[in-house]
């Protein structure tokens, strides 16, 4: 069964972008262009800090997703089974 990366706990994200750098390193480059992860930020509703949302392109699952999951210092990601194009 295919494994896919999921941003299971986006509320834990601190915006360090290490996940982006890890995936780009696997493609032998550094930078944001062409990244299959986007980390977007906005102020929290009470304006006390930032909250992040994480957008994953399915192409990311062609990479070593365990390394991407493991580099995250706050365990935002999980690796789950994919069945018939759906997340189980």
């Amino acid at each position, binding site marked *: 069964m295919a494994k896919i990366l999921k941003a299971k706990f986006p509320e*834990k994200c601190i*915006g*360090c972008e*290490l996940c982006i750098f890890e995936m780009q390193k696997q493609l032998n480059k550094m930078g*944001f262009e062409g990244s299959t992860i986007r980390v977007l930020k906005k102020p929290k509703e009470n304006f006390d800090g930032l909250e992040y949302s994480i957008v994953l392109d399915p192409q990311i699952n062609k990479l070593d997703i365990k390394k991407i999951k493991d580099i995250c*210092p706050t365990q935002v990601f999980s690796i789950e089974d994919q069945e018939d194009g759906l997340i189980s």
Partner: protein
Amino acid sequence: MDSLAKKILYIDLNTKSYEVKGETELTEYVGGVGVGLKLFTDYKEKDPIIISVGPLNGFFPYASKTSIILSDGGVIEDIYIGGTLGSRIRFSGLDAIVIMGKCNDKTVLDITNENVSLKESDVDLGTLGLPGMRSILAEDSKGKLLVDRYFTPPERFLERKLKEKNVHALCITGSKTFDLKNKQKYEEIYMNIINRAEEMHVKKSTNPSCSGCPMGCEMSKTGELGGNVLVHSLVACTYAEGIYSDIGVIFSCLNVLGYDYTHEDLEKLPKLIDRLLKEVEA
């Protein structure tokens, strides 16, 4: 990486013009405060704000700040801000931005890689640049200057200088990528550094973090003022001084990125900066 020239974006607010130049004579100043002070000295009469990054920004963990040099009432200040600004400048392909002169009206500077667009102050900042690849320096609703709507510069030097120049906000988008020439060695050095988190002078936490830093520390929000010139030439976090004052580590990082600095180049840097400071304060 091209280690022979630093790429500098010069913006003249008086004439609303800009140009990018490759400056080989800046190479010996490495980056950050070194390059910033040299540019400040060269353009002192134009009362510039020099925003610069170092060669490791965007490439190595904890090299996550942005250096700013300006004159506050005749006193030269070097300040350092966190957030995503440094990595956006790095991936714009620039080493420094020199902002000279003054706008007639409140203006927003929208920089994407090497291109600058001057916009009116009522522009919706959310429409500028590319989400996920941009960093915005702007005041919040209470008039406090913030990077990414969270990270603060120290004191109010930068706020005052931007107001003097009629610069209302700054958006920087970096959408360039750089190939890794020696991926295996790069990965080895990268992981070695990231695994030295216990040498950081801050504790891991869950606050918004700077780009490339896994700490999420309680100090991330607060900018830095002055400090170790080698660390600030790399524009690393001051709390990573234990890692980035190690010449061997720095040399390995620079080398794997293709820079041909020698140990001697790095060792003479503090003296070069000291000489610049004396020159600019004379």
